[in-house]
C-alpha cells in the first residue's frame, strides 16, 4: 500500500485555477517531487493532503486514511512545512516551539535540540524580529520536531541561504535513508533533482509528466554541439538527416539532438569530418521542465 495516495483530485477555484484530475502515489521511503511554475496547483494539492481543503472530486489518503476525515489524527505522523511562513504574533521563537511541543504532546526534547543545533537556530528572539531566513529555519525545525514518518514540504528551501540549502538537502537525504516518506513541491530544479526519486511536472492544475529522473537522464535525447574548421565540411554535415536544434553559419557550428538509438550512426558519421570542437550538453531537468513551459507558451500563441 502506498503511503500517500492521490486519486483523481479535482478542485476548481474558477478562472482555470485549481487542480484537475491529479493522481499520484508515493511509496514508503520514496521522495516525490512536485515541480511546477507558480500557481500551477502545487500548494492546492498539499492543502488537500493536509486536510485544509475538501476535494470536489476524488480523494487523498495518507496511510490509507482519508486526509479530510482524519486530518487531526494524521498530523501525528506528518511533518508539514508551509510555503508561506506566518507565525502567531507577540511571542518569541522559544515560546512558539514550546507551544507546538505542548500541542503535539512531546515531552522528549533531545531530537528537537539536535535539530536546533543542526540548523544553527537560536529561537530566543521575538518572531517579529526574526529575519526571513531565521523564520524559515524555525519553520523547518517546527515541522520536524516530532520526528514524523511522512514529510510534506511546500517549497522547502525558498528563503534559505545557499549554505542552509545545502544543510537542508543533506538533512532530507539523511531522513530519506532513515525510511521517511517525503512529498515536496518546488520550482527550484536543483533541489528536486538532488532529492527526488520520482518527479511530477504540474502545469495549470494538471500533471503533464511523471518520471524517474535517473531513467530520464539515461533515456533522454543527447545534445551535442559540433564546430567545424571548413565551411564545406560544415555544409556537408548539416545536410545530414539529423534533428538540428540550431545552425550557426558564421561560427560554423551546429547543435544536434539525438535519440539513444541514433548515437552509433552519428559517431560513425562524425568520425569522417574534421572537427574543431565537440561538446556534449549534459541533460538538465531545467531544460526538460522548460520544454513543457515553452510548449505552454506556444499553445497560447496558437490560441490567439
Amino acid at each position, binding site marked *: 500500500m502506498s503511503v500517500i495516495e492521490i486519486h483523481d483530485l479535482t478542485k476548481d477555484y474558477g478562472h482555470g485555477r485549481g487542480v484537475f484530475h491529479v493522481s499520484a502515489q508515493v511509496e514508503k521511503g520514496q521522495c516525490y517531487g512536485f515541480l511546477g511554475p507558480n500557481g500551477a496547483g502545487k500548494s492546492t494539492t498539499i492543502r488537500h493532503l493536509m486536510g485544509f481543503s475538501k476535494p470536489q472530486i476524488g480523494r487523498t489518503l495518507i496511510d490509507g486514511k482519508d486526509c479530510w476525515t482524519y486530518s*487531526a489524527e494524521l498530523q501525528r505522523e*506528518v511533518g508539514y512545512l508551509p510555503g508561506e511562513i*506566518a507565525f502567531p*504574533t507577540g511571542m518569541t521563537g522559544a515560546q512558539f516551539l514550546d507551544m507546538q511541543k505542548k500541542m503535539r*504532546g512531546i515531552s522528549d526534547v533531545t531530537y528537537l535540540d539536535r535539530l536546533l543545533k543542526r540548523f544553527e537556530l537560536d529561537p530566543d528572539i521575538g518572531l517579529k524580529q526574526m529575519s526571513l531566513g531565521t523564520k524559515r529555519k524555525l519553520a523547518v525545525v517546527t515541522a520536524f520536531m516530532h520526528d514524523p514518518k511522512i514529510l510534506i514540504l511546500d517549497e522547502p528551501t525558498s528563503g534559505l541561504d545557499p549554505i542552509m540549502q545545502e544543510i537542508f538537502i543533506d538533512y532530507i537525504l539523511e531522513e530519506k535513508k532513515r525510511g521517511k516518506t517525503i512529498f515536496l513541491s518546488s520550482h527550484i530544479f536543483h533541489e528536486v533533482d538532488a532529492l527526488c526519486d520520482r518527479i511530477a511536472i504540474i502545469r495549470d492544475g494538471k500533471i503533464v509528466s511523471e518520471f524517474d529522473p535517473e531513467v530520464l537522464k539515461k533515456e533522454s535525447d543527447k545534445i551535442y554541439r559540433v564546430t567545424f574548421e571548413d565551411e564545406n565540411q560544415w555544409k556537408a554535415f548539416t545536410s545530414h538527416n539529423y534533428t538540428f536544434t540550431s545552425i550557426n553559419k558564421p561560427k560554423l557550428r551546429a547543435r544536434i539532438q539525438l535519440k539513444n538509438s541514433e548515437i552509433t550512426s552519428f559517431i560513425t558519421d562524425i568520425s569522417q569530418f574534421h572537427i574543431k570542437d565537440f561538446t556534449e550538453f549534459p541533460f538538465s531537468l531545467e531544460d526538460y521542465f522548460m520544454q513543457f513551459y515553452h510548449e505552454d507558451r506556444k499553445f497560447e500563441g496558437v490560441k490567439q
Partner: protein
Amino acid sequence: MEKNKKTARFFSKPLMRQTIKSNWILCVAIMMIMVLLANVMNYAMSMMATERSDVDVTEYQESFYTYLGSLATYDTMTKQELSYQDFATGKNDAAYETAFAMMNAKTNMKLSVKGFQDSIDGLSQSGIRIDKYVKQFEYAYALKESEGVFDKKALTPSGMLTITLDMMGVSSEMVEKMSEMDPASMMNQMYYTAMGLLPIFILIVILANSLIADQVDRGSMAYVLSTPTKRSAVAITQLVFIIVVPFLILSVVCATRIGTSFLFYDKVNVAGMLALFGGMYILVEAVCGLCYMGSCLFSQSKKSMAFGGGLTVWFFLASMIGLFGSENMVNTGMGVSELSIFNKLTLVGLYDVNSLSTIGTGSIDFTFAWKLLILVGIAAACYTVGVIKFSKKDLPL
C-alpha cells in the same frame, strides 16, 4: 520517541493558553476602562440623587405655608417680628406659643410650635433649602393681596412664571415635564444601552476577529492545525474564551459597581443591579455570537471585520439614536418619540433596561424575559453555525 497519542477533539489546553497570552492585555485594558466608567457614573448619579429627592413633600409644604401665613398676619396685627429665621434659632419658643394660641382662638385652627417644627422637618426631606420655600411664600403672600387691573383675577407667582416662559418661547408644558423627569433612570438607560456597551463591543469585535479569521487570513492557523488538533477543538476552545472573557469582565465591573454603590447610597438594590449586568452579558454574547460567526464564515480578516464590526457599530449607533426616542429624552425636549423605532432595529433594543431594573423592587415587570430569551437564541444559533462552518470549510492555508 515518546508520543502522546491523544487527539484534541473538543478542547485544546495549549491553544487556550496561547489565546490568553496573546489577548490578556487588551482584555485587562478594556476591563479597567469599564470599571472606571461604571464607578464614575455611579458617583455622578449618587450626586444627582442627593440634590433631588423623590419624597413627596406637598403636605408639609401646605402646612408650612399655613404657619408662615398665620405668622405674617400675627406680625402685622401685633407689630411683632416673628419669622422662620427667628424660629429656627429656637430661643423664642414662648413668643410663638402665644402667637399660635392667639391665632387658634381667632381662626379656629390647631397651630402649635410642635406642628410648625414637624412641617419644617418634613419639608427638609425634599433636599431643597427651607430658605427657598420662605422666599417663595414671600412672593405668593405679596401677590395674594392684589389682583389684575383688567381681568380682576388673582395674580400668582406660578402664573407669572408661566407667562414669562411663554414669552421666551419655552413651552411651560415642557418645563413641567422636565421637573417630572427622572435623571437617575435616564442615566441608567444611557449607561446600560450606550456608554457601558461601547468598550466591551470594541473588545468583542477585535477578539472575535483575531481568534479565527485573522489567524486563517495570516496563515498562522496552519501551525495549530498541523498538530493533532481537530478543527472543532480549535473552534470550541476559542468559543469558550469568548464566552468566559466578557463574563469575567462584566462580573468585575458589576462587583465594583455594587461595592461603590454601598459607599454612595444607603440602600442598594443588589438584585436589580445583578439583573442589569446579567442582561448586559446576554446582550454582549448575542453580538459576540454574530461576530464569531462572521469570523468563522469568512477566511479574510477584512471581510470578517466588516461583518462583525459593521453590525456592532450599527447596533450601537441605532441604540444611541433610539435613546433620543426614549420617554425620558422626549420629556426633556431633547428627543422625538418617532426615533424610538431605532430601538427595534438593534439587538440592544432587546435589552430592556427599564423592566430589568424593576427586579428587586415590589412590582417586577417580566417583559425583559422573552427579549433576553431571543438574545440567548441568537447567541446559541450563531455559535453553533460558526463552529460547524469552521469545521467544514476549505481553509486557504
